[in-house]
Every structure is written in structure tokens, then in C-alpha cells.
């Protein structure tokens, strides 16, 4: 049994893959673009789960999968039509199947009633077709019997299959197996189909006839080619190994930087470069390029398509819509966009929450929609795309949009803003991200538990991402998430602040500039602003915010970095000097210490020293650095004069 336990995780992993495949196939069926292969892949998915579950003795799962599979077989043999009604039953059954596998993995037990309902509706499907009923009724009686008995009728089904519908393809398969190559008239797709068909037809038979233990292994190892819709070859690798590889590349990047530093300092000592130092420089550049390529290659290994998250969202929307009594259709785009797997895992919860919100608060009730001349079914679009080195996920609905009057009232009521606050539309929209804000008047099953969009925003920010919202009354709202492609490496701007090297993420920097005193003003409440092309931007003195004494005094004119937050709010950070840009490996401080204010993480420089990575949004919001010391102490009189003129 130990051996079985060892392969159990593989089985569950396969299950989740099969469930994604099943969900995808049903989505294609729903869109009406399905061909025979789609139905086959749905059938295969359920069948593989059943086969695996059988060998692990998961009786409940086997029973349910069996009924499900039998019903899918009717669809496969065209005995029932894939109407919306039928598909809904299948979708519900998919949810139950997913819950059952989750339960076997140690999750929550499945809602008994829902499971029974689903089984009943599946059985109802089985009773519908008048023709060929004999076989199916046999099945129905079967599923109550001991589990060892179950698979037999199914393999019988499979034998009968070629005669019913797949005659052309399977007939060939059986008779002209060896002559396939010479059959030049057969289009390639059909051959492919044939291949797959063969796999499905043959494998289950083996699985079901071999004794239990080896059976499990077969499913675990052999399930893959049948499940993946592409023909790409793949191997399963322990995630830890890839993470280790990633760490090593990180070290390589640091080593590379160290080498470069040693080189440039020796260059400085011997400024008259000879040919060999030039060669050395070139060789170093090419290894640097290779390191970057290597890093990209490993990132690609860790990358997974967004599909893994997106497919789960279908179910989220389905259930949320069901609970809210609304009709909602989820459209997805860019499921093949690849992102780092760590991001995928961490995106599931925020996206789930946002989708539930969209169903609950965004999309109107059917009747309201019809009154407003909209289609009865609301549409939520979820899309992912790569955009300038980041991944952008947009979630938009065609619902009512944000009710700004109500949002404002609630924010006042909850003490988030004062009653006389002057807010732009976008400011009001952004109030929904404020902690403790929840617009639902009643606490519904879906959302409105008080943990709202602020939690989502926090989760996205923890990933180094930004979230923004646009909304139009009556037309709907759209959320846009922008996330880094990876959590391991980023491009950083190296700056000096009070004699210390600090890193800012390049992604948040809009522009950098030399300060000139005509553009600096002091406003009333002791804060400095800079005027950039006619726009006043508050200045934050980074050294002051960090509580570092400015050892360099006022000798250096500060440099300004304009940074932008998610809402497009700009802040000017004053630092002593910009040292350059470099790729940095992100290292956690929390691992051995705790989180430090204004610091998001650390990195290791080429010199081996630790440099802190600034938490830009936090520092931009800090009050301590509002007064630009390096400037005002020197020109106090002048600035206060200017201040009088300005304010």
C-alpha cells in the first residue's frame, strides 16, 4: 500500500488536469464549436479519474464518475444532444466530481444533497433515450454494486462504440492498422484523431483488466498523453528542483555582477586599456547575455498558462450566478498566456473574490437588464495578456457600473472620508479598495463579508502588482491587474540615499530628473512640492522617511524620481544620486527577521553587500519625508517666499 500512497499525489495532480480538460471541453461544447474529439476528451477525462480512483479504492468517487461517464457516453454516441440543459447537468456534475476529488485529498466533505441531485439528473439523462436502453439500464443497476464490478459494462460500451458512431475512424483503426502510412488520402487531422482514439480505446481496457495495484500506476503514468490536447512531450519534475535551479541562477546573476564590478574597478586603476581587457569585457558581456537567456529559459520552465486559474473561474461564476439568481456568462481570453507558477497559485483567491463581486454587485438581475435593453444574460470578460514585461489581467462586466453616489455615502457613513471631501469620479471608484468598505446592504452568501476589495488589493500588491478600476454607469466596470512576470527577479534602479545604496523597482518609476530650485515650492502644511511641466507633485525625502541622517549633507543636489501608484497618483522621491540600473534577485527579509516598514525585500549586490528594495507605494505615502530637508534648510528664506507666492 505504501507504493500506492506514493503515487497518490500524482493521481490527484492528474485529476486536477483532467478536470481542467473536462471543463474546457464542456466550455467548447457550450460555445457550439465542438467536434467529436471534444466530447471524447470530456469522456476520457472522467474515465481516467474513474480508473485511477478505482485503483485507490475511492468508492464514492468511482460511483459518481461512473454515472457521469455513462451519461457522457450517450453524448459521445449522439444519443443525446448537447443542449444547454444537458450541459448544465454536466457542469454541475463536474463541480461535484471536483469536490469529490478534493474530499479524497483531505478537503471538505461534499454536500450530500447536491451530489444526489446531480446523480439523479444524470440518471434522468440515461433514461431519456428510448433506443438502446437495455445496455444503459444495466449500468444503472450496476453502480450500486461493489466497486470491482463497475468497470466491466463500460469496456463493453467501448467495444460497441465503433459500430454506433465512430464507424469510419474506428473501423479503419481495426482493419487497416498496418496500412495507415500508405493511406495518402486520409487528411492528417483524421490520423491524429485516430491516434488518440486508439489510445483511449486501448488503454482503458488494459487498465480495467490488470489487477488493482499495477492498474493505478498505469493510470498515473499513462494518463498523460490522453489528457493533453497537444502533442507536446513533457516530463513531470519536482517543483523544488526547479526552484533550486532558479536559486542557482539567481546566485549566478549576483556572481556575474561581482565579476563586472571587479573588472570595472581594475579598469579604473589601469585606464589605458589594452586589447586583452577589451576581449575580457566582450567575453563578460556575452556570458552576461547567456546568463540572462538561461534565466529566461528557467522562467519558461516555471511558467504555466493562465488556463489553470481561468478554468477554475468558470465554476466560481457558475456557482455565484446560481446563488445570486442571475444569468451570467464568463468569456475568457488569453488563457494560454504564461506566467510564473508562484503567481498562478496566488492569483486564484483574488480573482475568485473579484469574480464573485462582479456577479454579485456588477451584473444586474435579469429583469433589470431587460428593462434597460440589455441582454438577459450578463457577460463577464476575463482576459490575460503580456504587456511590456508584465502580465495584465482584465476583468470587465457589462453590469450597472459603480454607483458613485452610493459608494460615496457609504464611505462617509463608515468614516473613510469626510462628508465634505472633494473627490473625482476616479477617487470615488477607488474607495471600494478602502479597508472595511463593503457596499452590499445585506451580507450575502457571495460577498459582503466585510473583507472586500481591500484584501484583493493587498494580495495584488504583495505580488508586486497594481490594480486599477474604470467604471461607467449603466455600462459596467472594468478592473485591470498588472503583475510582474516573476517574483524572483526584477529590474531595479540603484540609488544612493544618505550614503546607502537602495533599490527601487524600475517598473514604478515614471521619470527621473535633476532638481532645479525654481520648480520647488513649499506648501502650507509643511510639505514641499515640485512643479513638473505645470503639474505639482508632492516630494518625499527618502532619507528622512527612512530615518537616516543625511551624511552627505547638502553638498549634493538631490535627484528626483517620479513614481506612480496604481491610481496614477504621482510622487517625487528625492534621493542623493542615481547609480544605475541592474537586474536584482529578490531575497526575503521576513524569512530570518520580520517585515520592515518601507522595505519590501532585499537583494545582494555584486560586492556581496545587502541592498534594501524600497516599498515604493508605502514610502510615497509616508508623512515623515514630506519636507525636503536637503533643499529647504539651505534656502529657507527663498522657499518660504515662494511658498507665500504660491499658496
Amino acid at each position, binding site marked *: 500500500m505504501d507504493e500506492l500512497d506514493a503515487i497518490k499525489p500524482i493521481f490527484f495532480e492528474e485529476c486536477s488536469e483532467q478536470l481542467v480538460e473536462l471543463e474546457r471541453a464542456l466550455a467548447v461544447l457550450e460555445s457550439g464549436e465542438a467536434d467529436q474529439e471534444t466530447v471524447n476528451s470530456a469522456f476520457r477525462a472522467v474515465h481516467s479519474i474513474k480508473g485511477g480512483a478505482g485503483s485507490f479504492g475511492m468508492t464514492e468517487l468511482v460511483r459518481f464518475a461512473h454515472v457521469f461517464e455513462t451519461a457522457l457516453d450517450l453524448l459521445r454516441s449522439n444519443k443525446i444532444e448537447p443542449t444547454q440543459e444537458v450541459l448544465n447537468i454536466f457542469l454541475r456534475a463536474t463541480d461535484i466530481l471536483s469536490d469529490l476529488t478534493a474530499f479524497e485529498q483531505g478537503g471538505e466533505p461534499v454536500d450530500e444533497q447536491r451530489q444526489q441531485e446531480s446523480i439523479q439528473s444524470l440518471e434522468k439523462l440515461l433514461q431519456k433515450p428510448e433506443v438502446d436502453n437495455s445496455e444503459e439500464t444495466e449500468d444503472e443497476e450496476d453502480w450500486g454494486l461493489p466497486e470491482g464490478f463497475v468497470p466491466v459494462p463500460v469496456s463493453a460500451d467501448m467495444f460497441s462504440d465503433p459500430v454506433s458512431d465512430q464507424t469510419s475512424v474506428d473501423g479503419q483503426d481495426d482493419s487497416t492498422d498496418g496500412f495507415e502510412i500508405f493511406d495518402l488520402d486520409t487528411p492528417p487531422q483524421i490520423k491524429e484523431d485516430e491516434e488518440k482514439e486508439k489510445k483511449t480505446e486501448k488503454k482503458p481496457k488494459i487498465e480495467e483488466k490488470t489487477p488493482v495495484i499495477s492498474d493505478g500506476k498505469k493510470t498515473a503514468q499513462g494518463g498523460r498523453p490522453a489528457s493533453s490536447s497537444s502533442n507536446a512531450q513533457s516530463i513531470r519534475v519536482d517543483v523544488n528542483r526547479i526552484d533550486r535551479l532558479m*536559486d542557482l541562477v*539567481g*546566485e549566478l546573476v*549576483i556572481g556575474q555582477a561581482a565579476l563586472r564590478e571587479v573588472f570595472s574597478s581594475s579598469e579604473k586603476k589601469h585606464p589605458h586599456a589594452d586589447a586583452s581587457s577589451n576581449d575580457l569585457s566582450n567575453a563578460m558581456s556575452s556570458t552576461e547575455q547567456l546568463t540572462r537567456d538561461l534565466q529566461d529559459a528557467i522562467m519558461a520552465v516555471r511558467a504555466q498558462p493562465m488556463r489553470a486559474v481561468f478554468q477554475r473561474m468558470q465554476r466560481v461564476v457558475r456557482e455565484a450566478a446560481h446563488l445570486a439568481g442571475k444569468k451570467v456568462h464568463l468569456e475568457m481570453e488569453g488563457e494560454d498566456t504564461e506566467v510564473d507558477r508562484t503567481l498562478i497559485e496566488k492569483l486564484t483567491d483574488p480573482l475568485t473574490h473579484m469574480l464573485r463581486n462582479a456577479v454579485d454587485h456588477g451584473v444586474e438581475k435579469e429583469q433589470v437588464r431587460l428593462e434597460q435593453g440589455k441582454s438577459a444574460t450578463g457577460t463577464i470578460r476575463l482576459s490575460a495578456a503580456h504587456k511590456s514585461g508584465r502580465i495584465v489581467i482584465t476583468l470587465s462586466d457589462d453590469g450597472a457600473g459603480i454607483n458613485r453616489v452610493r459608494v460615496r455615502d457609504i464611505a462617509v457613513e463608515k468614516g473613510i472620508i469626510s462628508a465634505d471631501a472633494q473627490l473625482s469620479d476616479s477617487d470615488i471608484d477607488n474607495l471600494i479598495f478602502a479597508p472595511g468598505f463593503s457596499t452590499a446592504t445585506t451580507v450575502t452568501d457571495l460577498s459582503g463579508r466585510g473583507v472586500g476589495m481591500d484584501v484583493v488589493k493587498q494580495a495584488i500588491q504583495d505580488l508586486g502588482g497594481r490594480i486599477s478600476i474604470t467604471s461607467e454607469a449603466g455600462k459596467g466596470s472594468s478592473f485591470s491587474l498588472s503583475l510582474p512576470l516573476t517574483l524572483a527577479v526584477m529590474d531595479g534602479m540603484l540609488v544612493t540615499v544618505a550614503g*546607502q545604496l537602495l533599490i527601487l523597482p524600475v517598473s514604478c518609476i515614471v521619470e527621473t530628473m535633476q532638481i532645479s530650485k525654481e520648480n520647488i515650492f513649499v506648501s502650507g502644511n509643511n510639505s514641499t512640492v515640485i512643479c513638473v511641466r505645470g503639474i505639482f507633485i508632492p516630494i518625499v525625502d527618502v532619507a528622512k*522617511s*527612512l*530615518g*537616516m541622517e543625511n551624511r552627505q549633507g547638502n553638498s549634493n543636489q538631490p535627484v528626483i524620481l517620479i513614481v506612480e501608484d496604481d491610481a496614477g497618483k504621482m510622487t517625487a522621491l528625492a534621493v542623493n544620486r542615481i547609480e544605475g540600473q541592474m537586474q536584482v534577485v529578490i*531575497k*526575503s*527579509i521576513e*524569512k*530570518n*527577521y*520580520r517585515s*520592515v*516598514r*518601507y*522595505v519590501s525585500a*532585499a537583494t*545582494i549586490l555584486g560586492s*556581496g*553587500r*545587502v*541592498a*534594501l528594495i524600497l516599498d515604493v507605494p508605502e514610502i510615497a505615502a509616508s508623512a515623515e519625508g514630506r519636507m525636503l530637508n536637503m533643499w529647504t534648510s539651505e534656502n529657507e528664506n527663498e522657499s518660504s517666499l515662494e511658498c507665500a507666492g504660491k499658496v
Partner: protein
Amino acid sequence: MQENNTLPVDSGKVISFNVGEQEYCVDILRVREIRGWTEATPLPGTPRCIKGVINLRGIIVPVIDMCELLHVSNNDASSRNVVMVVDVEGKTAGLLVSKVSDILDITPEMIQDVPVASTDEIDPLVSGLIAFDGRMIGLLQLSVVAEQALENAL
């Protein structure tokens, strides 16, 4: 060495070190390595006893200034300072000490209670005293060090 179970030190061996003029010791098994002092990167908004963070082969490790933590005046702030890298409560931390002196074998009977005038004065950092070779060595409680230095935001 049969009474190991009553010994607060698993191995029966401790490393003793100086913090200013005073001498302390920790279980040798908790010490990962001893390295020379390299300038640490200061962290903003942290208590005085946190010197900053250093790079330990790619891992970011905080350095605790034991002089600050134990309120020992350090007249001799020379570069002879060393960092003892210790494992504590699942984390790795560096202890900045003046110098590492000895490896000692200890037995439970060698450990005396810390004499206190009143209960207010109990210092949880030191759980016992060892008289050795005419010296007094305090047995440092690393878990308390971690609690006071690494977790308290102060």
C-alpha cells in the same frame, strides 16, 4: 554526562564568548558558523540592537548587537568583533559579539541560578550562571534573544 536530559544544553558543550567585559555562552549545536564582522546594511525603523542585515551565502540574515541587547557598554568597538551565526526558532540570526573565547564541557551541576535581589530583576535572557576557571559565564537563552530582538517591533 548521564544527566543530559536535565541539561539545558543538548550536547553538553557550549561556546563561550565575550560581550564587552562580560562572558556568555550558548549551546554549540546552535552555532552554525563564526565569521568576521562585515559592515551590515542598516534597516530603517528597527530597534538599536539590530545592526542591520548581512549576506550569508545568498541568505539575508539580521545581525543582533549583543552589547545593545544586554546593555553592556562596549569600550572596545574594534574590528575584532565577530558574528556568531546561530539557528534560533527556525530562523537564522547573527550575534555580534566582542570575541569568541572557548568551547567548554558542562554538566548540570555546574549551572547555578542567577542570584536576584527581587523578582522584578529577573533577566530572562540569562537562564543560569557557570563558574569556570575563576570566570562567570552566563547561559544565554537564544529563544528569548529571538523574542526580544527579532520579533518585538519596539
